[in-house]
């Protein structure tokens, strides 16, 4: 009885502390699930045109209405998360990996390598990330893979800077000094002592950057640098529908809402993760 009470009160406490984060996480989980299972969940083929039924308003048959070519907007919104979320996740993972490698090697080794890496990162950070991404896609060519690479490239310095600052602190920690005095190899120290301890802030940063990546990928697809025209994709759908805003507002509205809700949910989820993983905040009970 007492145990049950304890569980209930603990769940209540968690809910009170992380309510928005939990809601954000749940919404994002649903979005991810629907995106992954898009083919099974979508009521219609997102590419199927019905010219006679163009611009149908939202109804029982077409919950989000139909677009300029008579395609079901709901099915397109359901499928439309795939390119953006795929590109965003891949870009953040790539940026995290590359940035961490650069930051750790520079911060751990120090000297000219650190200076060279950090000056390079400074140069990259001096460009607004969206501008840098546009520049990279313009150089590499249009396509979702290049959009992913461009976002990843533009975000890598953020992770590199963060990783370096953590490593510089960690190498002075007693357990690292002790390991080194016991003759442990650098690789062992980095893998066993530094990386595990730097993960919480890196994960928090990754969640924040995921929201930025979703926004950037949407923007790049909106301006036509990502997916091919006609592909169900939130950014592309908003771009195709923007001139219909006064005549068939449902066409750009729903993909626009999908981007907004996704970015918001990831941000809330990221805030919760930060609160949970940041020892200072946790100690303060914030």
């Amino acid at each position, binding site marked *: 009885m007492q145990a049950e009470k304890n569980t209930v009160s603990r769940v209540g406490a968690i809910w009170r502390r992380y309510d928005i984060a939990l809601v954000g996480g749940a919404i994002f989980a649903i979005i991810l699930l629907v995106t992954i299972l898009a083919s099974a969940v979508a009521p219609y083929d997102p590419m199927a045109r019905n*010219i006679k039924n163009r611009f149908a308003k939202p109804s029982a048959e077409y919950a989000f209405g139909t677009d300029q*070519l008579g395609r079901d907007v709901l099915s397109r919104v359901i499928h439309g998360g795939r390119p953006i979320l795929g590109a965003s996740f891949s870009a953040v993972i790539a940026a995290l990996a590359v940035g961490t490698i650069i930051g750790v090697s520079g911060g751990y080794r120090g000297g000219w390598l650190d200076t060279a890496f950090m000056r390079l990162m400074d140069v990259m950070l001096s460009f607004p990330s969206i501008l840098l991404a546009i520049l990279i896609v313009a150089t590499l060519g249009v396509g979702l893979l290049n959009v992913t690479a461009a976002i990843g490239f533009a975000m890598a310095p953020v992770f590199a800077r963060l990783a370096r600052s953590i490593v510089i602190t960690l190498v002075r920690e007693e357990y690292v000094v002790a390991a080194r005095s016991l003759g442990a190899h650098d690789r062992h120290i980095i893998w066993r002592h530094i990386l595990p301890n730097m993960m919480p802030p890196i994960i928090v940063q990754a969640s924040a950057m995921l929201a930025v990546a979703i926004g950037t990928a949407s923007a790049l697809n909106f301006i036509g640098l990502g997916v091919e*025209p006609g592909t169900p994709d939130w950014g592309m759908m908003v771009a*195709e529908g923007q*001139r219909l805003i*006064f*005549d068939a507002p449902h066409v750009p509205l729903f993909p626009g809402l999908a981007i907004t809700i996704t970015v918001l949910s990831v941000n809330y989820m990221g805030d919760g993760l930060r609160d949970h993983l940041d020892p200072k905040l946790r100690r303060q009970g914030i």
Partner: protein
Amino acid sequence: MLKQRRLCTMLFVFLLLLSLGTAAAQDPQYGGTLVFAAESMGDSFDIGFWHGFGGVHVIDTIGEGLVRADFENGGALPGLAESWEISEDGLVYTFHIRAGMTFHDGEPVTAAAIVRSMKRPINPDDPSYIEGMYMYGNQGTSNWESLEAVDDHTVALTLKQPNATQLLVFSRPDGIIISPKALDEFGTEVGLNMSAAGPFKIERFVPGQEAVLVANEDYWAGRPYVDQIVIRAFPDEAAILAALEAGEIDMTLYAPFTSVPRLQNSDAIRVEVGAPLVDLFVGANVAKEPFDNLLLRQAVNYALDRETLIEAGLNGFAEMPASLLGPLDLGFDESGREVSVYDPDRARELIAESGVEMPLAIEVAYENNRFWPQLAELIGADLEAVGFDVTLDRLDAGSFWGKVGDGQTQLSINQRSTFVPDPHDKAILMARAGAEGSQTQHQALAVADEIDALVSAGISTVDAMEREAIYQEFQALMLEHLPYIYIGYLTPPIFVNKRVQNVETFGTAGGRINLREVWLSE
């Protein structure tokens, strides 16, 4: 009796008031500002270069050439020249210039000033000369034997060979006459300080944004009705539509076609439908694989479901196509409508006959604005339905025309506006590369020499009946070899605020707006 007389008097007064009211409603009024929304605004109005349609609209509103084009009935109308004679052999043109005209800067419009302006592209000693002023190529300068001012009011032009379009090309934007004072004073920067002799003059120009034009009180045909015209560039169609509905703009060609059904029921906005002066077509690069293969070009022709393209891609604002020439062109051959048809089975047969294995990867290039993306998507789907693996190559306007001009495309979704009402204006696309106005690499066609000979004959033949026969033969050859696959003749909606009266829909439909006689009812 008295009652009857009173009744008659009242009826008479009522009818008089009614007729006065009707007359007042129909009589043109002076005054007001008309705002025209353009899709772009260049950084200069130098007529030697292309500055987008926004620039053309300004040039057409401030400028005047020797003649003006009659888009409705064909032929030329008097401009700075009040009359002209052409010698029987078609070689000597004598223009009689109106007396008493002045340029916007107050300089008199004389024969010498006209000759000076017309010789600008061929006189490297002129202070305003700029190397490579390609737009002047449309004026036919390489065929000029001599051009001189006979006296203050007479200009004589002698050609090397007859040119059936010579008169009409003077009505082009690149045919407007510029003040000699402006040419001297501003030199190569004259495009930023244009002084012409048209119905409006530039009061203010913000490059890339807008041009404010005011009525020219001294215009030869009398002051235009409207006091001021603002031609303003908008970033996209949605912004234009919002401004139109908010009453911030009075007229545009560039609002979304999809809005027409709603706007037709609007209290404030009227939609007029333009004449079919713009050709829409898929250009095949015949100098490059795979569309050097006629069977594949024919397959593309039969793969296009034009009814759907027009209905869904253009919201119904186009007529079914026949050939490169349009229904209003001299020599138009309607029988082409039997070739430009949808028959996907025939397309598949032609692909099989070609021996090319499907799916064949191809690229379709198009401009990323207005209705082009929607059209491209539908065309891509039609081509995929017969076996092609289509990649849509979405480009900004500059990159698109650069790629088409450099022969780097496979298929391009293209258009040809009518800048002068003459079939040569379209046929010139097929002129041998390097010829004035030629934009394509069609010399790779098996019948390039025959087509080139017909294009040349079309321009050098003065007799209208003979020209008609030449252009019919030209169209037949084009349909047989299909360097272009036709989509339709655009009949663009012209969006106007209901207070705008007397809109000319012919030239406007082809991109040549004419605001000389427009007036505002409020």
